[in-house]
């Protein structure tokens, strides 16, 4: 049996449960329209008008996401390296030290320039 079929099975259970809950909620709950209920919730305060273009994220988060990609790629290389670490031996260690060292330069640069400061 294909080892990926059980994943489909458990995924289908979860998905089915989600869809079932949403359909059930639509059927069991009351429906009483009220303008205030459909408005955005701001603790009873009248919602202040949104800035032009809707909610915007600060540009800072672009940097966070980019750093995340960089480290994600590093992790993706680290995993196969770790799994066959014993076969690769000393040579594998040296090349990974070089790799981590180089990526660490990028990390140190971002840190030094204040890219890791949050307010």
């Amino acid at each position: 049996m294909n080892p990926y079929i059980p994943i489909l099975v458990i995924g289908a259970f979860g998905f089915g449960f989600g869809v079932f809950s949403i359909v059930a909620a639509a059927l069991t709950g009351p429906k009483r329209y009220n303008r205030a209920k459909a408005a955005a919730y701001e603790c009873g305060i009248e919602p202040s008008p949104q800035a032009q273009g809707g909610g915007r994220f600060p540009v800072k988060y672009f940097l966070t996401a980019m750093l995340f990609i960089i480290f994600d790629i590093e992790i993706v290389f680290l995993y196969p390296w770790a799994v066959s670490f014993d076969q690769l031996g000393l040579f594998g260690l040296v090349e990974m030290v070089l790799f981590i060292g180089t990526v660490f330069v990028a990390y140190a640069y971002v840190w030094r320039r204040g890219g890791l400061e949050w307010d």
Partner: protein
Amino acid sequence: MIRLSLEIGQTQKPEAILFYILAPLSVLAALGMLIVRKAVHSALLLAWVMITLAIFYIALDAAFLGIVQIVVYTGAVMMLFLFILMLVGVDAPDSLTENIKGHRATAIVAALGFGGLLISLIGRATLNHVSVGLAMANEPGNVQGLASLIFTQYVFPFEVISALLITAALGAMVLAHSQKSAGARLSQRALSSVRFRGDSLANAAGLPSSGVFARHNAVDVPALLPDGTPAKNSISGVLTARGDVQDSTQYALGSLPKVDDESGDK
């Protein structure tokens, strides 16, 4: 085309079923990505296309590549896309004005060229051969086989990738980082010290809250001081910079109809 589908018909049954279910879904999502109006819907459909690609990789016995496709593309790259969409404002309409000269012509030429490239590549695919070597490549295990290739035969490209990652970090810093926010900031302790040991204790218990009680309570309406002037520091600096501050004098008590003195006394 007919030969292609015959070929696929000859592959193992579950794989063929998977392909026939997912391939149309994937193509539909890709088309939908171009058609739908909202950028976030587009991004979601793209994420789905990437997941189906990952499933195809896994079906072709490239388990590691398939999972990495989800981790890196769906998890990281698409998250970056979503962040960027939210940076420019999620409801911002697409601008249709052309900023680059000859934009449209270049795009059409590039699209035609890429299409031609794809067709020629797919046209040259050999269909009647039985694929060999997959079992051999996966013999020590998919991950181990990959590792022994990356870290021996392809060491140099692997090390070059780290330089590429530095470039990415550098680019992100240049694009997104403003030096001003990196300036020295007072710590919470220092701020508290300034607040309590400074010249005035007026703000020691915190800044006044926004809104004029009982008349208006929104965050964009400055509080009124006893002399009737609006209190500037009751409003977030962001709102002031955005020019979204309302005039609170219109909610001042002076503009109210007269209230009974008696009820006021009690």
